[in-house]
């Protein structure tokens, strides 16, 4: 999904009264699957659109987004570290870290 499709989807969700978080990669260091500017939408029911790189990073983002929608209700910066041990089952395959701006839309 490109930026235009993400924004169209976000407008659609807002028009249907569905709360969601817009997540945008704002910083990267080392090897990350997606570049700065990559976007993803996360709804309360777990539906997602787009991708910030898949895997554990996205799982972490999903929990943060749902916490943001239910509890904090304000934008936040989420730092995701993908440098965990490669031998760990379910560990990420990339070696960098990234910051994601998570913004709720109600």
């Amino acid at each position, binding site marked *: *999904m*490109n*930026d*235009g499709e993400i*924004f169209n989807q976000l407008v659609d969700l807002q028009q249907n009264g569905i709360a969601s978080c817009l997540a945008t990669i*704002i910083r990267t260091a080392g090897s990350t699957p997606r570049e700065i500017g990559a976007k993803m939408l996360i709804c309360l029911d777990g539906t997602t659109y787009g991708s910030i790189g898949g895997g554990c990073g996205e799982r972490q983002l999903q929990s943060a987004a749902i916490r943001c929608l239910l509890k904090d209700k304000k*934008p936040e910066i989420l730092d995701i570290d993908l440098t965990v041990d490669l031998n760990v089952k379910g560990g990420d395959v990339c070696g960098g870290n990234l910051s994601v*701006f998570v913004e709720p839309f109600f």
Partner: protein
Amino acid sequence: MNMISRMTDLLETSRTFCLATVISSSVKDIMPGNKTIVLGDGSVEGGTGNNRLDGLINKYAIQALKTQKKQTIDIVQGLSVFFDIVAQKAKLVICGAGHIAKPLAQFARKVDFSVTVIDDRSNFADPSRFEGCEVITDDFVVALQNTNINTSSFVVIITRGHEYDTECLSEILPRKTAYVGLIGSRRRVGFVLEMLSNQGIPSDRLKDVFTPIGLPIGAESPEEIALSITAELVCVRRKTSVQAKKLRSVIGI
């Protein structure tokens, strides 16, 4: 109307813009999430309401549009702003609606190009063969004259004959493009380029043409060739045409 709807409207009219979002702030009355849209012509929508800071945001946004670089900048102490470049989909124009065009249109759509297919044969330029694409059945020259081609346009020339290739290229090469690729044997391609050179197209511009077309993956079937062309398009869009040319030079093309 909120900023998100405004952005979708701008993208509808195919405007590229910088979206500046405050991501952290200890400045009074400026909250994270605050947005400014800055267009290439310098016009501004939204903003923080603080004249001095808005001035700085606009300055960095214009710079970001020039360099096409997305980045986070601490514009003053305690105020970080993410400068994003938001652009419409890149456009791919395929001249020639034959066997390669069909998988090429499909692959290119999957990787986020908006696709236009041109052919003068109505049985080939048939919308049912090109789902989700704009299909133009007309002479190549007329169709290209009516098609907006600019620095974010990718053009692939895979017509059925060298005379059509030449026609298409004489329409396209005088305009600025992101990419032009031409299929064909060395002999056919050499002939076409020579004709264009005789027509007065500068040799530097002729060197921009990717030919033979596609990344060298040994493609043979129409689908494989379409894949190798798509890979080249992605390389040019994400990186540069310099990188795409380097990949070819590795095997001596």
